[in-house]
C-alpha cells in the first residue's frame, strides 16, 4: 500500500514531464501534420542549458533556490525556444509542400545533428549539477517503508498544472489560440483571412520548445544529472504519450503523459524494472495497431 502510494507520486512526477514534452509533439502534429522527431532533442538541449546555467549561478554564489530556479527557467526557455524556431526554419519550412516523408527524414537528421552537437561541445559523459532543491516531506511510514514526497516532485507537479491551465486558456480563449486552431483546420483559408500562417507555425514550434525547456529544467533539478542521450529515450516516451492520448489532442497529450508515467512507475516497482522501456514501446505498438486515433483523438475520417 505504501509502495503503491510512493509509485503513484513517482509516476505522476514522471508523467507530468512526459506530458509537457508530449504537448510539443501534439501541437506540431496538429498544425503541420508531421512528427517532429527532433523535439526530444530540443528537450535534451534545454537540460544541458540548465546544467550550464545552474553551474554558473553556483559559481557566482547565488544561493537563493527560488532565484536560481526562476533564472534558469527563463534562460532555458529563451534559448530553447530559439532552437525550436531555428529547427523549424532550417529543417522543415523549406520542405513544406513537398512529400510527407521529406520533413520526417529531415527531422531525424536534425535530431542526430543536435545529439552530436551536444556530445561534441559538452562531452559524452553524464553531467551532474550541484544539488539545487534537496529534501522533501515524509508522508507516512508503514512497516518500515516511508512514503517520501521530494520538493522537486512537488515543484514538477505544481509547475505542470500551472502550465496546463495557462496553455488551455491560451489555446481556447485568445486570438492567437484561435488562429492556431484555424491553421490546424484549414491553413489556406486561414491565410486568406490575413493571418501569417508561417508565423503561426513558428510560434507553435516555439511554444512546444518552451514546454520542453521547462521539462528539461525540472528533470535536471529532479535527477541532478543529464547526458546527451536522454532526448531520444524521453522523446520516444513522450511521443508514445502523445499517440496514446490521441496525437493532435492537447488534453490527450497530458493524459497520455500521466498514464505512461504511472505505467512506468508501477511496472518498475511490481514487475521487471529492466523492462520498463519495453512496456512503453509495447504500448506504442498496441495503440498504433488497435486505436491509432488514441484515447481522446479524433478519428482520421471526418465529415466536414
Amino acid at each position, binding site marked *: 500500500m505504501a509502495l503503491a502510494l510512493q509509485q503513484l507520486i513517482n509516476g505522476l512526477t514522471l508523467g507530468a514531464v512526459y506530458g509537457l514534452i508530449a504537448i510539443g509533439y501534439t501541437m506540431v502534429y496538429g498544425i503541420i501534420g508531421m512528427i517532429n522527431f527532433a523535439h526530444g532533442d530540443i528537450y535534451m538541449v534545454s537540460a544541458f542549458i540548465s546544467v550550464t546555467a545552474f553551474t554558473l549561478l553556483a559559481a557566482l554564489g547565488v544561493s537563493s533556490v527560488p532565484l536560481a530556479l526562476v533564472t534558469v527557467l527563463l534562460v532555458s526557455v529563451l534559448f530553447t525556444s530559439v532552437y525550436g524556431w531555428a529547427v523549424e526554419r532550417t529543417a522543415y519550412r523549406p520542405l513544406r509542400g513537398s512529400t510527407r516523408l521529406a520533413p520526417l527524414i529531415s527531422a531525424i537528421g536534425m535530431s542526430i545533428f543536435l545529439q552530436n552537437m551536444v556530445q561534441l561541445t559538452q562531452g559524452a559523459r553524464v553531467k551532474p549539477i550541484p544539488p539545487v532543491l534537496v529534501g522533501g516531506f515524509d508522508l507516512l511510514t508503514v512497516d518500515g517503508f516511508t512514503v517520501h514526497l521530494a520538493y522537486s516532485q512537488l515543484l514538477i507537479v505544481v509547475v505542470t498544472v500551472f502550465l496546463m491551465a495557462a496553455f488551455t486558456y491560451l489555446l481556447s480563449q485568445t486570438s492567437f489560440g484561435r488562429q492556431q486552431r484555424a491553421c490546424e483546420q484549414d491553413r489556406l483559408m486561414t491565410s486568406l*483571412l*490575413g493571418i501569417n500562417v508561417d508565423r503561426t507555425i513558428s510560434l507553435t514550434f516555439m511554444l512546444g520548445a518552451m514546454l520542453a525547456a521547462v521539462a528539461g529544467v525540472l528533470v535536471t533539478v529532479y535527477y541532478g544529472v543529464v547526458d546527451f542521450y536522454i532526448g531520444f529515450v524521453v522523446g520516444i516516451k513522450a511521443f508514445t504519450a502523445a499517440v496514446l492520448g490521441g496525437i493532435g489532442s492537447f488534453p490527450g497529450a497530458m493524459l497520455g503523459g500521466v498514464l505512461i508515467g504511472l505505467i512506468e512507475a508501477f511496472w518498475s516497482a511490481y514487475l521487471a524494472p529492466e523492462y520498463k522501456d519495453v512496456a512503453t514501446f509495447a504500448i506504442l505498438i498496441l495503440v498504433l495497431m488497435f486505436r491509432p486515433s488514441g484515447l481522446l483523438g479524433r478519428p482520421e475520417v471526418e465529415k466536414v
Partner: protein
Amino acid sequence: MMLELSAVHAHYGHIHALHGVDLAVQVGEVVTLIGANGAGKSTLMMSLFGQPRASMGRIIFDGEDITALPAHEISRRGIALVPEGRRIFPRMTVMENLQMGAALADPTNFDVDLKRMCALFPILDERQGQRAGTLSGGEQQMLAIARALMSRPKLLLLDEPSLGLAPLYIKKIFQTIRTLNRDHGMTVLLVEQNAHHALRVAHRGYVLQHGRIVLSGSGRELLASPEVRAAYLEGGAGKGD
C-alpha cells in the same frame, strides 16, 4: 479602378488553367464571372491571392501591384473571399468563425459588425455557440459570407455562393449582395453557375471559357446575348465547353 488583371496566366503543374485573362472591377460595381465547369473561374479567384500564383501577367488592386505578395498580405489590403465549398472552420463555433473573419480588423468595430451580421443572418445570432461543422449547408454559406464581411473588405469575392442551396436561400443571398452594394457601396466580384440570377444583380459580366475571356458586357447585354442564352441560361449550366 479597384481591381485590374492584365494578361494573367496560371498553371497547376502542367495544366494551363488561365490563358491571359484581362478583367477589371471598378469601385462600387458588382461584376460577375460566368462559365462552365472547369472554365477556370475558381482558379481566377484564387490566383488573386497567389494560389496558384499568376505565372505571367499583372494583378493590380487599389493602385498597387499585388501579383507577388503572399496571400495574407493580399487579404490585408482589403480583399475578402467566400471560397468555393465555404471552407468555414468546422470545429470552431459560429462566433469563433466570425472572430476569425475579424482577426485583422479594428477590434473597436467588432461589436457593431457582429450586430450587423446578426441582423443580416438572424440564424447566426441564434447559433453563436454551435460548432460550425454542424450547421446546415445554407447556414454554413451564410456564415462564410458573414465571416468575409467581418473584415470590412473593400472588395468582396464570392465563388458560387448559391451552390447547393434551396431557392429561398439563393434569393436571400442575392438580396444580400444587392443590399451590400447599394446601401454600403461594397464592390463585388461574383462567380456563379446560376447565370440568370448573377447577370441580373451584376452591373457587368464576363464569360470565361477554357481559361479565356470570350465575352463581356453589361449584365443586361449578356442576358440578351444569344451565346450566353444558349450556353448558360436555357440548357442549364455546364454545356458551354
